[in-house]
């Protein structure tokens, strides 16, 4: 056999790991992928696992939708104006987060901080609207311990809200890191993960406002 099975490249142009730069990208046979790809992919898999967790809450919500125990139902409770406001705010914040990604890509400290600040304020508005909705329900005797339907609603939507709150904490930390340490590579990769997270939360909200609020507001006779 002419080519030995273990060939060790020692051309100095090939970098410290002694391996050739990947010619065939994507399939992994060119050696370990660049770090940005690895970090991005790992976080992508985490996002999918998070979506699967949300789907378990969705399944519970769908199963328990009619279990109102004589208490208030979705149709009676949901205020779509609030839902519309929350949707608008979160969608806007996804856009501003995209702008922040561009600012980071172009290494502009000023625009990064501005875009992140706006994103954070929009996100905070979203949370405040949600808290107002929840406390309103509780005051009307429609809290999570009233019925199985309400338990599943508060858990599903509340879980999303907790994710957004944690993301806001992360956002603040990112702002601090960019300010303190500039656009170092590991901070930029961390921010890549943050922006993926923020966009994914808007994706989950799309499912929530459509399938929980809008479907829930339909008159009961129209539901399967």
């Amino acid at each position: 056999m002419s080519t030995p099975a273990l060939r060790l490249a020692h051309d100095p142009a090939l970098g410290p790991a002694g391996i050739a730069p990947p010619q065939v990208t994507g399939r992994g046979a060119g050696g370990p992928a660049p770090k940005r790809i690895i970090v991005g992919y790992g976080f992508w898999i985490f996002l999918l696992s998070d979506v699967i967790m949300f789907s378990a809450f969705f399944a519970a919500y769908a199963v328990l939708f009619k279990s109102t125990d004589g208490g208030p139902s979705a149709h009676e409770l949901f205020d779509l104006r609030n839902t519309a406001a929350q949707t608008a705010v979160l969608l806007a914040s996804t856009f501003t987060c995209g702008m922040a990604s561009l600012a980071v890509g172009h290494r502009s400290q000023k625009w990064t901080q501005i875009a992140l600040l706006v994103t954070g304020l929009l996100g905070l508005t979203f949370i405040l609207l949600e808290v107002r909705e929840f406390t309103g329900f509780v005051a009307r005797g429609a809290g999570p311990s009233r019925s199985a339907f309400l338990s599943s609603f508060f858990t599903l939507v509340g879980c999303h809200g907790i994710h957004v709150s944690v993301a806001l904490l992360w956002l603040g930390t990112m702002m601090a890191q960019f300010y303190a340490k500039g656009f170092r590579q590991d901070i930029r990769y961390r921010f890549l993960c943050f922006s993926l997270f923020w966009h994914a939360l808007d994706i989950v909200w799309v499912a929530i406002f459509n399938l929980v609020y809008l479907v829930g507001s339909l008159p009961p006779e129209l539901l399967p």
Partner: protein
Amino acid sequence: MLGKLNWQAIPFDQPIPLAAGAVVVLALAALLVWLAAKGYMPYLWREWITSVDHKRIGIMYCLLAGVMLLRGFIDALMMRSQQALAFHAAGYLPPEHYNQIFSAHGTIMIFFMAMPFVIGLMNFAMPLQLGVRDVAFPTLNSVSFWLTAAGALLVNISLVVGEFARTGWLPFPPLSELTYSPGVGVDYYLWAIQISGIGTLMTGINFVTTILKIRAPGMTYRRMSIFCWTTLAASLVIVAAFPILTATLAMLTLDRYSGFHFFTNEGGGNAMMFMNLIWAWGHPEVYILVLPAFGVFSEVVSTFCGKPLFGRRSMIVATMGICILSLCVWLHHFFTMGAGADVNAVFGIASMIIAVPTGVKIYNWLFTMYGARVRFSAAMLWSIGFMVTFILGGVTGVLLASPAADFVLHESLFQVAHFHNVIIGGVVFGVFAGYTYWFPKAFGFVLDERLGKAAFWCWLIGFYLAFMPLYVVGLEGMTRRMQHYDRPEWYPWLLVAAVGAFVILCGIALQIAQLWVSIRGRAQRRDLTGDPWDGRSLEWATTSPPPMFNFAVLPDVVSDEPYWSIKQQARAQAQLVTPEPEYTSIEVPRNSATGFVTAFLAVVTGFSLIWHIWWLVILGLVGAYATFVAFAWRDHTEIEIPAEEVARIDRANRAARAAALREGATR
């Protein structure tokens, strides 16, 4: 101030847990004192506790599993002896205690023995087999391990402070709801599993990313070892299934803590939904356990038969087929709950179909052995024992997959015998084979073969003695988890089963003796070349143990048995094939206390949640956030190993192998 915690939490009035707890606490204290006195603490902290090296983390996982095997097995001995004594009698374990024992037995064996053992083996071997330096996220790997250990610690704390759940290894409502389980037992279970579940999910993400994105140059998917394929499949199932567990246990936690009505009897709750969701996790879980074990057998069988694995491609297809199918059969755990004939039929057929790819694997192993000169080492014996035992267990599984049969056998000892048959025959034998096979690579010396074989025979004979009678009594109508009974026809079988448990105890004792003897005699049992078994995959190209960076230069892979082909070439020439490479410095990630600190805070937070010490919960969560920020704020994340050091280590490896070739050794 301390929530529900008070002195009554300690079981002063129950002699057995009190004595057990006292023994464990004293033994732990003695161990810590000895370690401190001998000055091992700085070494342990620097080299093991804060290590982010996949090899060290893998070893720690296996060590945790070994210790938990002892705890879980003691529970098993207690159950068997109770059932052997409790014919027309009360036995020695009151029902409240017996219920905690079988719950703890299952919980510990699945979550803190089997899972850590397979994850530990995958952690250790997979990066080496891929020809790379570490997993994708080494610090996350450390966090995962320590979170698993935190969960194990919480379960063990429940022995002395409070109580454990009495609801079985899966806490079915309404029994697990606050109304019927008002104590802290179920809460211990919930928080321990949630914490370790996060660790496991992170491991799944880590492994999937590593296998798909970080492989040696030239290693296409088809050239990956079968163990790495099964690791990929198991990790994908972890990513798919563990979020369901997190969500479902969260729902039960909300029911218990905040008066929600997911599964309660009142308020419209639906207890059946818990069954549906928890088994949607629970069935994939057992495939997470068994797929890596199948991978181990593929490696061991091909090595000790001296042949490439038969039917590689069909093996890969079967593995990925099992991966997908395992997510489609969960209802067979509750055929009797009343979904009706059409639903039951669909899931029953799916459950039978999943036996087909497993059968393909068995045939491939058998055909690998056919026509080979089989070396009956201890690892090979575990593999052959597995093939016989697992086939039997699998067949009883297909029997149970028929809803009609299951209506008679559900929750009987027949079912218990089936799943122990496949888990012990499959998973436990698999991790023991992997432990024996990779021990020299991990520690640099070989385990005693004779004691290993003796241990195997005790386990094999003990297993059959312990579990075949359970099939019989199951068919005779005995249900599981019985604290006492009065049917005379069951009694002799349960006596035999108790004897079997004690034979297994001898097997475990022999394994401990094997470890002791091997460590004491390690100078004579050194693995000098790094290849004690005449292996075929890349991990055997490194020294035993490998250097921290695994490979001085990443290998270039052109075949699916990369090490074997170059070894054959070298043997033909009686010298090393590759020239000495140009060594460059290697950057390795710095050790980090993040994992240990996170786990410490997890234990504090979990304990405070269990006992309703709310201020401590908040402190714990704040501490966790601070830990993440501290980790993210690090400026220096790597240390550099200079080229001269790399050269020195690799030259020694090359010299040892060149010497072995010159001697014309058979290795």
